[in-house]
């Protein structure tokens, strides 16, 4: 057995142990990558500072909304998916209508920024049904404060507003239609 082989064995074992130290979560069944240990996990679960809701909203937007509405909220005339950037629906005084759209989906023709969208076979699905109140408030706050919507003074959507609207429409099944929504006040 050459000495260098033994050295490699010891060295590789040592670096393997360092790797385990950094990646094993100390054998805690609840710790998954990328958390380092259970304290890291707990720290993550603490309430964050201001501005974090935009980060969270952006993440949710990226997974659920951008497929149709585009990464910058431009929508697409070909698929009939309306823009969010500069949309009067999004930038309304209150989130009364958009919470409903997220919760139950939207079907039927809709006019946004003077253009006609939707109305075909494809409707907006009820993406919000699977989200928590927190996630809905985050993603709506983000959409109201992203791209050219930024700096227009749109008020954040609070968890309480989401809770209240969800409570009101809990018996409603199926899509909302634009006409139905236009009858509602923008803000309670």
């Amino acid at each position, binding site marked *: 057995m050459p000495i260098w082989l033994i050295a490699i064995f010891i060295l590789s074992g040592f670096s393997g142990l360092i790797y385990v130290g950094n990646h094993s979560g100390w054998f805690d069944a609840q710790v*998954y990558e*990328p958390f380092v240990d259970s304290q890291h996990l707990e720290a993550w679960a603490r309430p964050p500072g201001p501005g974090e809701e935009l980060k*969270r909203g952006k993440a949710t937007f990226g997974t659920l909304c951008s497929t149709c509405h585009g990464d910058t909220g431009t929508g697409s005339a070909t698929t009939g998916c309306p823009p969010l950037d500069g949309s009067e629906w999004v930038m309304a005084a209150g989130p009364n209508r958009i919470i409903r759209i997220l919760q139950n989906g939207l079907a039927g023709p809709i006019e946004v920024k003077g253009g006609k969208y939707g109305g075909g076979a494809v409707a907006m699905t009820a993406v919000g049904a699977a989200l928590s109140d927190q996630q809905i408030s*985050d993603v709506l706050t983000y959409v109201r404060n992203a791209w050219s919507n930024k700096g227009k003074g749109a008020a954040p959507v609070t968890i309480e507003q989401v809770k209240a609207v969800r409570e009101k429409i809990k018996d409603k099944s199926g899509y909302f239609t634009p006409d139905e929504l236009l009858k509602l006040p923008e803000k309670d």
Partner: protein
Amino acid sequence: MNQGPLVFVGTFFALAATWFTFVLEPSQQIGNQSQFLIEDSGQLFPVKPAGLAHQGEAVYRANGCFYCHTMQVRPQGLGGDVARGWGARSGPVQSVSRDYLFAETTMLGSQRVGPDLTNIGLRQTNLVWHLQHLYDPSSLAPGSTMPPYRFLFTKHTLKPGQKRSPDALPEDPKAPGVEVLPSDDAKALVAYLTGLHSDGVLYEAPAFYVKPVAKADKKAAVPVTPAPAPAK
């Protein structure tokens, strides 16, 4: 000296060591997991799939969908899974073992010839889209390399005056008067796909912030057996 017993005992201990590390210990840790009660919404996660979706899992298995599609999203910082929008959790942890609690067979997959399907039930909820895509993938995704699963459908020519079945796929303008009907297997497979979602906010997979529920499974969770009606 007879070395036979030495080799035998050595082999036995080496095998016992890997068995202990990779079979026994993981079973102890994640073998008894149960549903998690999400404080925010009062819902349990994960939910047991409906009967049809469960049948669809068998179709997914029999046709080897998992050789080209993974069903695991890697966490933030490892590969581009999160950036591609395959994850549905807003926190850094994506797929965790609890997500697979109700899978009869866990088919994580090892190849991404096609996109990840962990959250396909959130990304594409349109059943007709899924059926059409199974029948002819390139009609909806031009250039797709996915093979068509025409053997999951039957094709009829409509007699004059005969009405199309409500189940039939949308008419192909190139072949008018032809009706394509999905088999039960195709419908079950689509029910399975549209039911896939790993988005519950869990203790081990927190959203950006949620107050932690009690740490151990024992306190917070409800036993698995009485599964509630599926949420979707």
